[in-house]
């Protein structure tokens, strides 16, 4: 091991991602809409956190803030703090702009529509590889891409690289997406409902594959899902989000052994298993859903000073 400077030691101990008191308000013609309220969460190096909530609860909005995408839109107010490693990204886009696609990457729900229909898979690998190494040659890029495709068990890498997305199956596209997300060896991957557009067996296989690859590299993951069953299988720690606010925060074991928030209990009661299609059937609202955040013991973000 090479001797590390003080800064990198600090950086290694710091959370890969630390979100504090994040609020997001969309300005719409019908008035302001508060999509996120006082959201605080963190991801430690090598850790996989789950973010669970119903459709419209604000999961993707968090993902878009973490990647700096929402900040580039108009008619939206973002406040609070979002740190990547030690860098604050709210208020200064420069760091996140150079980080995304390189240190931070994203896996989209529907790979078929997230890949560009008019460029070959090979072209898209090349562009992503150029994010880390702008001068990489086409031959070198394709060589790296071939290895990455072999990692996701796509056995005819040359055919895949020469294909357009519509020539691949949904499962193959999702594997391509995973290979793309991992190819620059990012510190953090945001996976927003990966594969939920696939049929359940293919989805399960893809998720396990993703989990293996990520585990081997010790990449940190923010795993977004509306399916507690999926989260149970893949996350170390879970945040439950309800209408833009985190309502419960626990390790996966704690959450399933001892769900405390009324909303989490309702979600658990309606849990679909990974091999089942469908959205949990949670009651519209009961009074307890609005209860404040419940954080289980030992889940707090370790402060830098004490680390």
């Amino acid at each position, binding site marked *: 091991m090479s001797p590390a400077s003080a800064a990198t030691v600090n950086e290694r101990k710091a959370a890969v991602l630390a979100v504090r008191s994040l609020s997001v308000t969309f300005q719409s013609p019908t008035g302001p809409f508060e999509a996120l309220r006082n959201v605080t969460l963190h991801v430690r190096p090598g850790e996989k956190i789950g973010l669970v909530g119903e459709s419209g609860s604000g999961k993707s909005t968090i993902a878009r803030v973490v*990647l700096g995408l929402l900040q580039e839109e108009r008619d939206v107010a973002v406040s609070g703090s979002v740190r990547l490693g030690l860098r604050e990204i709210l208020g200064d886009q420069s760091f996140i702009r150079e980080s995304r696609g390189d240190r931070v990457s*994203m896996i*989209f729900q529907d790979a078929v529509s997230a890949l560009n229909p008019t460029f070959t898979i090979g072209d898209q690998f090349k562009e*992503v590889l150029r994010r880390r190494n702008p001068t990489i040659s086409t031959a070198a890029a394709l060589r790296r891409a071939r290895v990455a495709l072999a990692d996701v068990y796509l056995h005819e890498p040359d055919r895949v690289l020469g294909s357009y997305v519509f020539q691949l199956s949904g499962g193959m596209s999702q594997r391509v997406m995973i290979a793309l997300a991992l190819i620059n060896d990012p510190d953090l991957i945001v996976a927003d409902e990966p594969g939920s557009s696939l049929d359940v067996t293919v989805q399960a296989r893809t998720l396990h594959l993703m989990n293996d690859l990520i585990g081997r590299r010790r990449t940190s993951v923010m795993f977004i899902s509306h399916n507690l069953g999926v989260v149970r299988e893949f996350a170390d720690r879970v945040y439950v989000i309800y209408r833009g606010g985190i309502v419960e925060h626990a390790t996966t074991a704690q959450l399933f052994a001892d769900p405390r928030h009324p909303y989490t209990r309702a979600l658990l009661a309606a849990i679909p298993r990974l091999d089942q299609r469908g959205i949990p059937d949670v009651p519209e609202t009961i009074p307890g859903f609005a209860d404040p955040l419940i954080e289980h013991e030992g889940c707090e973000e370790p402060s830098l000073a004490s680390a």
Partner: protein
Amino acid sequence: MSPLVRTLIHRLAASLVVLAGVSMLMFVVARVIPGDPARIALGPNATEAQVEALRRERHLDQPIPVQYWEYVREVARGNLGNSLYSNRPVRQDIAQYLPATLELIFAAAAMIVLIGIPVGVLSARYRRRLGDHLGRVGSIVGVSTPAFVWGVILQLVFAYFWRLFPIEGRLAASLPPPPPITGFFVIDSVLAGDGKTLIDSLHHLALPALALAMAGIGQTARLTRASMVETYRKPFIEMAHAYGFREARISNRYAFRPALVPVLTILGLDIAALLGNAFLVESVFGWPGLSRYGVEVILHKDLDAIVGTVLIIAAAFLVANIAVDLLVAVVNPRIRFAGGRA
């Protein structure tokens, strides 16, 4: 055989059928509109015997199917018949006037593509900013003003008041036309290595081409903008942003190529429609082109010349459409690979 080649062959075969249909239709229409073509050609002073002789010579006394058969044999030999009026082969007349019109149309098409598309792309990239608003207003003005009005406006402002451009014609009277090789003055003067003629012909070409192009530029800018804005909402653009692709690269490549597909299709129709608008622009700028010739032959009921002119225009239209479809296939891999099946 690649699907693309097969499609091309299909399209060419279909085009021949269309041309046969157009020729039949025009052949009949030219003969049923009122007026005796032989009498019109020879003028009021010709004797009945002379008129009768011309009729016999041109088979005008025969039933229309027989006349058509004669015409087809003529066309098969590579001719388009003879003008009743100028007494020259129609092919020769068209060869004289067509290049002027094509030069005008190609110049206008180039302007539509080179101005309309970039304006649309930039408008979409900087949407809802000042430049976008100006571009959109400009586009609407461009689209909603007829080409001949643009002709008159441009001529008044730039040729008459400011005297920056010549008022009419293809070339200054003091310059001899370049040796005819393609019939395009711009190309022929390049081939002849004659810089002075080249500049003068471009100078003459600019205003009429712009007048002809204005509507297409506006239309193309609007369409490109709409298609780009639509494409920006697609998940693959969000993905491009999430992976940090540079904004200019997204706009010029990753959003541009998918957005171009619907634009190209309409663009092909717009450019083909230039043929129709060219006539008015040609009259405003005294441009010696085919459109003017076409109207002249209709007024003279010059049978073969009418059919020949329409055939050439139809052929140009079909070629433009096939060219656009090929371009669309190049841009859109989905069509390229499905080509044989489509």
